[in-house]
């Protein structure tokens, strides 16, 4: 009986997450590939599914036209993609620069303070991200709180244009994604053994050397996890640049939006999304593969 429960428990632990991934990750992904291989039409739904199970049995007639169209007009998609990757790259970099000292400080403070600080880090997640963006707009506007204060304090005469600039976009990105960077960094820094650092100091290593040769390598798993957690959603981000950015910030997320809503071309929208996923996932898979190679 006991071993049965154990066995059942083990199966549950393995299959529950797998089932979850299958239903909420793999199925939608497969459906998206299906839509991307379908033909657009003016009907409900607005595409003729490549794979369908109907009266005449199962049929599969994939069309690569959507991918060919993207290839034909590659310039229209390349520049927004470059914009998106640049936005994601710098957002990740800024998050890392801000998050590292914060995570270090949290990991080095005493246990009871750590809990409070972690809760404070997570607190912004309790309100809607959209609301936080509107709060930021209220702060950064030409007639907003910050400018009102600067003018009142006599630091500037005319309001400083902070909205619709890179500054406002990256403020929004950092505000949104910083906790995703801090948490994995904290998790790896908190496990760092103090005696290792003391030993290095005893042997005459300077602070910078300790950081470069011990702390940074040991926290690399946290750095990588944090960068992935920030970079991947940031590439697809389109709400923050749309709300806080100026006209030059055409992101790939917005391009997918226009394919879907303006051209009513769901298949092409799906095809772009699939290509984007491939571009992001393949290097990660490749890196994992290299890791395994080097280990064996």
């Amino acid at each position: 009986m006991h071993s049965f429960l154990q066995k059942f428990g083990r199966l549950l632990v393995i299959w529950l997450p797998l089932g979850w991934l299958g239903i909420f990750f793999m199925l939608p992904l497969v459906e998206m590939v299906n839509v991307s291989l379908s033909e657009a039409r003016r009907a409900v739904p607005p595409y003729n599914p490549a794979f369908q199970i109907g009266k005449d049995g199962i049929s599969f007639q994939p069309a690569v036209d959507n991918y060919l169209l993207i290839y034909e007009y590659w310039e229209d998609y390349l520049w927004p993609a470059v914009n998106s990757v640049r936005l994601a790259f710098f957002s990740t970099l800024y998050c890392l620069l801000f998050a590292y000292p914060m995570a270090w400080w949290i990991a080095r403070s005493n246990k009871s303070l750590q809990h409070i600080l972690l809760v404070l880090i997570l607190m912004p997640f309790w309100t809607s991200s959209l609301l936080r963006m509107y709060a930021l707009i209220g702060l950064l506007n030409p007639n907003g709180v910050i400018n009102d204060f600067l003018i009142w304090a006599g630091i500037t005469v005319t309001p400083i244009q902070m909205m619709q600039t890179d500054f406002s976009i990256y403020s929004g990105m950092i505000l949104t994604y910083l906790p995703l960077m801090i948490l994995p960094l904290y998790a790896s820094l908190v496990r760092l053994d103090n005696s290792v650092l003391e030993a290095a100091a005893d042997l005459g290593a300077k602070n910078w050397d300790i950081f470069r040769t011990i702390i940074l390598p040991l926290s690399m798993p946290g750095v990588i996890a944090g960068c992935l957690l920030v970079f991947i959603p940031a590439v697809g981000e389109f709400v923050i640049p749309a709300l806080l950015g100026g006209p030059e910030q055409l992101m790939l997320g917005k391009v997918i939006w226009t394919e879907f809503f303006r051209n009513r071309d769901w298949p092409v929208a799906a095809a772009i999304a699939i290509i984007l996923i491939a571009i992001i996932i393949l290097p990660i898979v490749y890196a994992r593969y290299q890791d395994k190679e080097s280990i064996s």
Partner: protein
Amino acid sequence: MRFGFILAFSGFVAVSGHTLAEESLNVYNWSDYIAEDTIANFEAETGIKVTYDMYDSNEVLEAKMLAGSSGYDLVVPTADFLARGREAGAYRDMDLSKIPNASNQDSEIQDQADKMVGSDSAGLVYMWGSTGIAYNEDMIAERLGDNAPTDSWSLLLDPENAAKLEDCGIAILDAPTDVLPNVMTYLGYPGTSTDKAHFEAAGDALSAIRPFLRYINSSQSINDIANGDICAAIMWSGDAFQAAYRAEDAENGHVIDYYIPDEGTNLWFDVMAIPADAKNIENAYKFVDYMMRADVAAENVNYVWYASGNKAAMPDIDPDILSHPGIYPTEKAKEKLFVTPVYDAKTDRIVTRVWNRFSAGN
């Protein structure tokens, strides 16, 4: 005992099923597009429970309609979106004999919308309006003098003017089908054209003022122009008056006005229509009939400041609204108003590509 419970339970299910089928209605309408007490009054009068949801773009509504099984019984798409939706089979015809108050409708407006949709039983026009320019009177006068062209698209589309207004902020709707045709009329092409070269010329004209634009966005300008954060914007008529009202209400000293440029502009019509898979069709008819009542229609206009499709409502509409040429255009201005054709998929692509290139600045 157990049997009794099952009986009672099944009875409950039957009754609630009955009320669901008979006495409810799911309406999906634009945000800020109905007087505050209209829904409550309708519920009190008919006993029909209304679930009222809102959207802020035709695209969102269209995506729901094209995906199917939206659960809504009455929606209010703009005429060109309705035309495309009907082509896809997403809407059903309206039986006007079930809507006695349909006779209140302004036939001139209804005919134009019907022509655009390509059917006289697609639905009834709720409100209609124009695309024009909203501006802050003092800020414009300060920068362009008393001879500022506040009767022409050139106020924003002439790069010389746009450059002078850059510091106080100018913005454009993120709605290519409402902006590009108007830029075409400004350039002397017909706004109804579907010629690729005309769209591209319009895109080039927009690119010329792009360096001076604060942003391209459809919903941000209302607040920003009311607060004085921007000083002029291409906007929809009703949004502009909402901004003017907000500025007046806040007593912040900003006076906002709106005009239909002399070169002409496109008209749009928002039409009450019934989705093909609506469940409570009879209630939808009752609701449309209620909305078409002269007093109800007038209350809605007085609240949202858009022109009504309802002629019988005119005597009850605020004279300030009726006499404003930006809402009810003068006979002379009417000659220059036009209705854009419903674009096919190929034209959609051209429009989107021109627009994306302009927004991205390449």
